[in-house]
């Protein structure tokens, strides 16, 4: 039982299944003409983002508003952090205003966990360093579940392609996929894959091409251009040549294979524009489902009786 959502580990397989099941009720709400319910009236949700973000922050705020919660946004650029305020002081100030949940993104792994120890509000990890991004994992699974019209992931073959080593999305999503029974292969050059596979329970491939005809899902990760400075791969063009999902490579996928990407995309690098916009792509659905999943998380923490899993 947890009052917070800091890691996919807080959920476990049964918790993941429960959240996905619960999300169907919120998908319905988001599809209404007036997509709003009074469930969390009087609750306040604060967004505390120490890193830039578009979709995650807006997604959480939309989710909170559709549940009738009040929202507060803390943007680092216009805050007292610029004056040198510490994380702890900032968090305690927000807590003193009276918040029920704080959605945290921070470049330091473990920051949300620390914050959870300082204040009484429920803490939701919206991305901490290279560690985790649990609501991304939930929305990825919900999107797959809805697209594939199945509730079981047993034996589903997923290729996760790209910079796994530096990706909190990969860490959370792979953990969740493995927990629900999918067979995950991490694909990329050795410099972008984890140094140790201990705990990942995944296969590894340095080649994408052999996997194309047999994989059910291709999950592309963003190539973080700043990594190029670290000389982890020779050039973006070289990366695209070997690992980019070009239209030609997409043509070698099974007809029912689906393509995912957590965003933001580098069109023409890890994914070709026509593939991203093609019928096999469920990238837009990922964003849409993100709202329903975050409503389910907020409801579970603030409405249902106060804990998840």
């Amino acid at each position, binding site marked *: 039982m947890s009052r917070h959502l800091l890691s996919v580990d807080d959920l476990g397989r049964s918790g993941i299944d429960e959240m996905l099941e619960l999300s169907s*009720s919120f998908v319905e*709400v988001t599809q209404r003409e007036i997509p709003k319910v009074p*469930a969390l009236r009087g609750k306040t949700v604060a967004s505390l983002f120490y890193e830039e973000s578009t979709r995650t922050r807006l997604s959480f705020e939309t989710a909170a508003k559709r549940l009738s919660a009040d929202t507060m946004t803390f943007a680092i650029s216009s805050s007292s952090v610029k004056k040198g305020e510490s994380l702890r002081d900032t968090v305690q100030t927000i807590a003193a205003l009276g918040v029920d949940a704080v959605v945290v993104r921070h470049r330091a792994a473990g920051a949300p966990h620390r914050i959870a120890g300082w204040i009484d509000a429920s803490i939701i990890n919206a991305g901490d360093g290279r560690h985790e991004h649990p609501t991304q994992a939930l929305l990825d699974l919900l999107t797959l579940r809805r697209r594939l019209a199945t509730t079981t992931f047993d034996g589903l073959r997923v290729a996760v392609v790209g910079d796994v080593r530096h990706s909190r999305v990969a860490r959370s999503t792979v953990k969740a996929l493995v927990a629900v029974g999918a067979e995950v292969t991490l694909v990329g050059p050795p410099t972008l894959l984890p140094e140790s596979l201990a705990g990942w329970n995944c296969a590894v491939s340095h080649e994408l091409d052999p996997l194309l005809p047999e994989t059910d899902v291709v999950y592309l990760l963003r190539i973080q251009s700043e990594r190029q400075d670290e000389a982890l791969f020779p050039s973006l063009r070289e990366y695209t040549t070997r690992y980019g999902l070009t239209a030609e490579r997409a043509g070698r996928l099974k007809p029912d294979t689906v393509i995912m990407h957590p965003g933001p995309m580098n069109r023409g690098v890890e994914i070709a524009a026509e593939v991203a916009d093609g019928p096999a792509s469920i990238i837009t659905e990922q964003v849409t489902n993100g709202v329903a999943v975050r409503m389910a998380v907020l*409801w579970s923490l603030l409405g249902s009786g106060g804990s998840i899993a």
Partner: protein
Amino acid sequence: MTAPGAGTPAAQPSSTPEPPDGGSFLLRAHVLDGDDLRRAFTRIAHEIVERNHGAAHVVLVGLYTRGLAVAERLAAVIEQVEGVDVPVGALDVAFYRDDIGLRPIQPLGPTEVPVDLTDKTVVLVDDVLFTGRTVRAALDAITELGRPRAVQLAVMVDRAHRELPIRADYVGKNLPTKLAEDVRVRLAEVDGEDGIEIWGPPPEEVR
């Protein structure tokens, strides 16, 4: 006719609360058996048609979980007697309850109402009418789905103890109960068999 809620997860074991004292409830009485229940369904279906001069503008909206099963049974009877395919919707009221935060609440399934409710006569359907708070939440939920011409209420059991000014238009069985007791409507679709039972604490504990 579509079947809202089809494919949703199995119902929770019981919609009824655990005994407040944590003790074990005992079966006190079988009030109605399957045949009695069938007769009640038939009568209520006829009453709905009679009161609304047919069923052309009627939409049955069942409250998860057993209310939905009751609504589907009523729709089947109305189709038999009137030849009208009455739309059946499924309604979840969790997000509209007035006790959010006071006790654990989970939605029981997605709300699925297949038609626009504006200018329809909505018959809300539930298994047991008790405090009236669930129906109050349902009225709020319905309001967001359209503006019905009228909303009526059908329940299989009215066990009294109302806490709000709400009454049922169609009642399967009026069943005076003690507050500490528990009325369980059992339906084949959910529970494997039909019947209505009263459960309660062991006799010496009755308040």
